[in-house]
């Protein structure tokens, strides 16, 4: 499976695309690298799924705009076409990096979820605080063989969702979280 555990410093061949996780971690990214934590990256197929979504949304738009521009001969119509193409390209560059930045780690008493490059966030969810766990997979996600696991505590601010897990891993994580949550169950 593509979710083999990686260490805190995964061997990333491409330095440009791994701002947060390479050995070249700067001081500033240190807060997001707690000591002794083994991060598990999410499946790269999530990037493929998201890129497909981008292609499906922007592709027809570009085609329609280009067709209009050709048909009417209005040269200004190429401006929005170019903008849309640039947006799509930007998304295409960003998505794989974002997906690489997403990771989770199971510790003895809590689950860590990390995401984001520009705006980073790290969430610590104690197992005993979990109210329920959602596993969901949309039509695209199923096609790419991924599912997402979302943890819910009594706080709506807990945004601990892990997208892009292989279904088997998602099921394992769900059962693991449920059993650990039960063992450490606390009230509110």
């Amino acid at each position: 499976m593509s979710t083999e555990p990686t260490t805190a410093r995964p061997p990333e061949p491409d330095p440009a695309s791994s701002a947060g996780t390479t050995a070249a971690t700067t001081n500033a990214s240190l807060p997001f690298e707690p000591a002794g934590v083994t991060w598990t990256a999410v499946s790269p197929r999530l990037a493929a799924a998201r890129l497909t979504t981008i292609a499906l949304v922007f592709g027809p738009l570009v085609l329609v705009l280009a067709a209009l521009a050709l048909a009417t001969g209005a040269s200004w119509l190429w401006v929005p076409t170019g903008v849309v193409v640039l947006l799509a390209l930007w998304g295409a560059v960003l998505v794989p990096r974002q997906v690489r930045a997403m990771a989770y780690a199971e510790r003895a008493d809590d689950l860590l979820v990390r995401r984001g490059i520009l705006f980073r966030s790290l969430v610590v969810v104690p197992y005993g605080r979990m109210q329920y766990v959602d596993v969901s997979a949309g039509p695209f996600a199923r096609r790419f063989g991924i599912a997402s696991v979302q943890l819910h505590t009594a706080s709506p601010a807990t945004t601990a969702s892990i997208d892009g897990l292989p279904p088997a891993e998602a099921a394992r994580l769900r059962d693991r979280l449920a059993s650990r949550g039960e063992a450490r169950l606390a009230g509110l």
Partner: protein
Amino acid sequence: MNASVHDEHVPDEAWRRVHPVTPALKGWKSVVAVVVIVGYQAADDVRSAADLLGGPGWLIALGIVLLVALVGWGYAAIAWRHMRFAVTDEAVHLHSGVLFRTQRQARLDRLQAVDVVQPLVARLVGLAELRLEVAGGSGSGVQLAYLREPDAQALRSELLALAAGLRRPTAATAPAAHAPGTVSTPVDPTAHAPADVGTPDATGSTSAASPVPVPPASSIPAFEEAPEQEVYSLPMPRLLAATLRSATVVGLVVLVIGAVVAAAVSRDLGALAVLFPAFVGFGGALWGRVNAGASFRAALSPDGIRLRHGLTEQRAQTVPPGRVQAVQLTQPLWWRRKDWWKVDINVAGYGQGEDASRATVLHPVATRDEAATALWLVLPDLGVPEPRALVDAALSGVDDEGGFTPAPRRARWVDPVSWRRHGVRVTRTALVIRSGRLIRQVAVVPHERTQSLGMEQGPLQRRLGLASFVVHSTPGPVAPRVDHLDGRVAAALLDEQAERARTARATARAEQWMRERS
């Protein structure tokens, strides 16, 4: 009695109904709504309305109103017939719904708060609504409307006692005294049976075997109301003064000056017309605040914090111990000279209701002493030798006064106004978070009430080596976070706080607060 709604966990005789006057009180709403809507439409054209009312139109209008009233009351009556509730040792059971039946069970050990609410009309006829909050998200509470006021209070004491882990006396001892009272409203059969003649004997009336503690006049109720001790009350003059010192009033004054100047410059009084809707809107907002905060009193009892407030709609809240998830003290700019504070709390279950902002106030306008007292109500042990000094440092201190860990000096680039106020202090029992320079804020979260923790960092913060630390609490007015801490400090805090919350939870007191933890 409907056979389809059967619950084998509840003995038949335990089922009760709400007061039979309920449909009449609830049916009124539909009548008022129709009259308001029709009146609003007709008011567009005053003359035609007058014509209509002059002739036989009067009768038609009256007929329509009567018809709507009948339909509304009829529906409410059917709904009343289908609504039943029962209290067992573990849970409150509620069956309701006419077309779509609902059966709800609220577990008493998950009870978060019990409120007795009396809207004006209900108060005039001596009725009250009982609301139970459990932490199940939006609309998960149980609302019992309407009960006779003494019944509502007796039921509240009973629920709190059961939730606290006390057990009711065995059925043999309690009901013997009031066996004759087997008719009508189950809760108080002896005293008021003649008044409640409308009650059909459908739910299996309170029989002698009922395990429900019935408080008849002749015997002691099974659960007496826990004694309470008043802690503070809000004088009306202070509430009015504080309301006048709000941003709303400042906005209104600015608007008035603007309109007057505009009218003077343009020599056209039409500019003043804009003030009428403004007065209505602002007046409504101000009235809402005075109404909610009027005669605000807080008391402490073994059942937890008791709050009573309200002018037209009166509300008596009881929040059991350990149910407050977070506290926040806020000082708007205009209250600084008087050193007044507003104290808000997060209680699971209060967060999402329609009038959530009313229920989550622990003190509308507190002096500094009262604010410290309010904090003490929630958290008697702040975990430091000199709690008052800590509170003072949190309320008005800057930098590292009072042992706070402040944001570093470089945070001024991202928050030039209030960077000196950002700070956090960890005590043995709670996390104290200080922020805001113009609007001062202090949030306190007991360690065992932390839901989850987070850390966030934007691009600017990253350049400066800063990070924000976030504590996730249940829905409510308090969203505790410390902005712009040093990155390493934030990371260490995240790690330690996760550990601290875990150990605090392990030793926290039981959900049933009068029972020893097993």
